[in-house]
């Protein structure tokens, strides 16, 4: 089997909380606490979870925008955690990011043309004329007119700014893009427009995506594989079809039942979770979800559940839950 584009092994990102007279480390926010997954070439992995689950931190750590606390990140077989600054700058051409907030992700005092062209300038790609041509190509791909180049970000709507952000991310021809909640801040009718732009990038340009969102419907639309995160851990991970047809982890099932469905005929039976999401500074012992889980057993508060393959060898469906401990397949 060919090598995956991105392979993440036991990645951790902990943020120290400092205080006291000598800025001692008082506690650690375990934003990402031992996550492993693979992203195949031209595939999209959807990462879903609620606030505090660490999905945004994971997206940024994979790009080394945060320095990992532990773990390895293999891009095309090379461990990027070991690269020095110059080599990392070169590798950045392969991996880019688009952001959630269209109002904070574009430099307010720079013209759109300058913003989109900047990646080409920084890496000194082509002649200035070639760069201008490339910028115009990018505008075409995302569906914007040339006139936008001489304007400032504040003159555009959220949807247009997101397209500009996408154009900027495409400039260096990356093989994969981390999309951090790219449509969550947009109006409903604009969301579908921007999602279609992303779909086109997947189909026509073969770009792999790490697509982060809290919206299960959006994730289903764009993803080949899906990972569900809770308090820094990946609790379920499988291909998209299996996850939606047969969600196994109790958290995944609760999440799916909580989505308000815009269809009057299906007022779903809600699994309402008790309590609030615990703080990532003080995660519960054993399985992080046991404090809210209707099916918790005594074992759940004591032992961290191992990742188990509850699917098959060809179509793995990984779950980290003691309800599935007796599964025959062992993790890859």
């Amino acid at each position, binding site marked *: 089997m060919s090598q995956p584009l991105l392979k993440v092994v036991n990645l951790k990102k902990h943020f120290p909380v400092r205080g006291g007279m000598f800025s001692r480390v008082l506690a650690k926010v375990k934003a990402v606490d031992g996550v492993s997954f693979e992203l195949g070439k031209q595939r999209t992995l959807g990462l879903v979870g609620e606030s505090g689950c660490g999905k945004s931190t994971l997206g940024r750590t994979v790009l080394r925008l945060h320095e990992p606390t532990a773990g390895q990140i293999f891009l095309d077989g090379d461990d990027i955690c070991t690269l020095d600054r110059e080599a990392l700058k070169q590798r950045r051409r392969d991996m880019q990011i688009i952001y959630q907030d269209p109002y904070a992700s574009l430099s307010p005092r720079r013209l759109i043309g300058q913003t989109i062209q900047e990646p080409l300038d920084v890496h000194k790609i082509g002649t200035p004329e070639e760069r201008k041509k490339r910028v115009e190509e990018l505008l075409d791909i995302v569906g914007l007119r040339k006139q936008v180049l001489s304007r400032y970000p504040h003159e555009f709507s959220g949807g247009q700014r997101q397209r500009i952000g996408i154009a900027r991310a495409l400039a260096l021809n990356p093989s994969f893009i981390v999309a951090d909640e790219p449509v969550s801040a947009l109006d409903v009718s*604009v969301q*579908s427009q921007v999602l279609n732009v992303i779909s086109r990038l997947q189909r026509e340009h073969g770009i792999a995506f790490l697509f982060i969102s*809290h919206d299960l419907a*959006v994730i289903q*639309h764009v993803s080949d594989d899906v990972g569900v995160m809770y308090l820094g851990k990946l609790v379920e991970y499988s291909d998209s079809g299996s996850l939606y047809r047969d969600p196994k982890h109790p958290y995944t099932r609760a*999440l799916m039942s909580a989505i308000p469905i815009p269809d009057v005929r299906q007022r779903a039976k809600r699994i309402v979770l008790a309590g609030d999401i615990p703080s990532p500074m003080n995660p519960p012992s054993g399985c992080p979800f046991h404090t809210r889980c209707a099916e918790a057993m005594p074992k759940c508060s004591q032992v961290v559940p191992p990742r188990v393959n509850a699917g098959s060898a060809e179509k793995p469906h990984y779950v980290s839950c003691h309800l599935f401990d007796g599964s025959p397949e062992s993790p890859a």
Partner: protein
Amino acid sequence: MTDEVAKTLLCVRNLVVEFDTRFGPVRAVDDISFDIFPNETVGIVGESGCGKTVTGLSLLRLVPSPPGRIVQGSIILNGNDLVQLPENDMAQLRGDDISMIFQEPMTALNPVLSLGTQMTDVLRQHRKMTKREARNVAIDMLEKVGIPVPEKRIDEYPHELSGGMRQRVMIAMALSCNPKLLVADEPTTALDVTTQAQVLEQIVELQEEFHMAVILITHDLGVIAETCQRAIVMYCGNIVETGTVEDLFQRPRHPYTKGLLESIPRLRDERIAELPIIPGMVPDLLSLPAGCRFADRCKYAQADCLQTPPRLESSGDAGSGVACYHPLN
């Protein structure tokens, strides 16, 4: 007609709210009329800029002025026209007969005052009570909204609570004087999906217990489907369609409603390549077209749609209507 007026709780007629901008005045709400009946939950749904929040604020006369002002129209609650009421009288009504909760509970609650102080302030403003009595009522309310150990938590500060809890506290404050009408402006948008489910359930339960009407302002059609009986769809300052939630979702008559329903990403059995979209963008309020404001994005537009804007025509059932020359279905 007088029969209906007697039955309605809130009667809004021809409301126009203008804002001053450097390019001239802009009508955020342009001649809207609707009724709210007692004990019902009505959703006002639309996207940014459609005027739904300004409508909600107008009902409590909270539109920031300057730059905004109500230029025309009437808002009749219990026989009083809220637009004409002097500010002192309006302040009496707010929190008592009509209450509002907002999207961002952190900024709506005062971070330097304890929850107890904020809640007892509201109570003692509108009812004759001693501090102790008010505190007891407040603890009671906190319990009703599902805050565990309310006697302890009442002395805590907003930052000590999670987003979902803060929102519940805000609901408790809004309901403490038993208003007849609650206006909820995007109350769950800033919350996680699982917390959202909890808070919405709470609102539905409380509505039944307190016998009040709720106006739920949101952009999320899923929330409307789950909690409302009727809904009002707004676009660009106008009401384009109203009706029961069943009718709206299964037989939408306005092309915008239909387009919106089709373009929302939803869980499907099969993955589709491209989502249907509503092409184009919401028009600039400063340069509105002569005819229907949705015409340039509408697949079904015809010549007459471009001449004059269509008026909201009601059909048979009270509270149903559509503003379209060629409605679907």
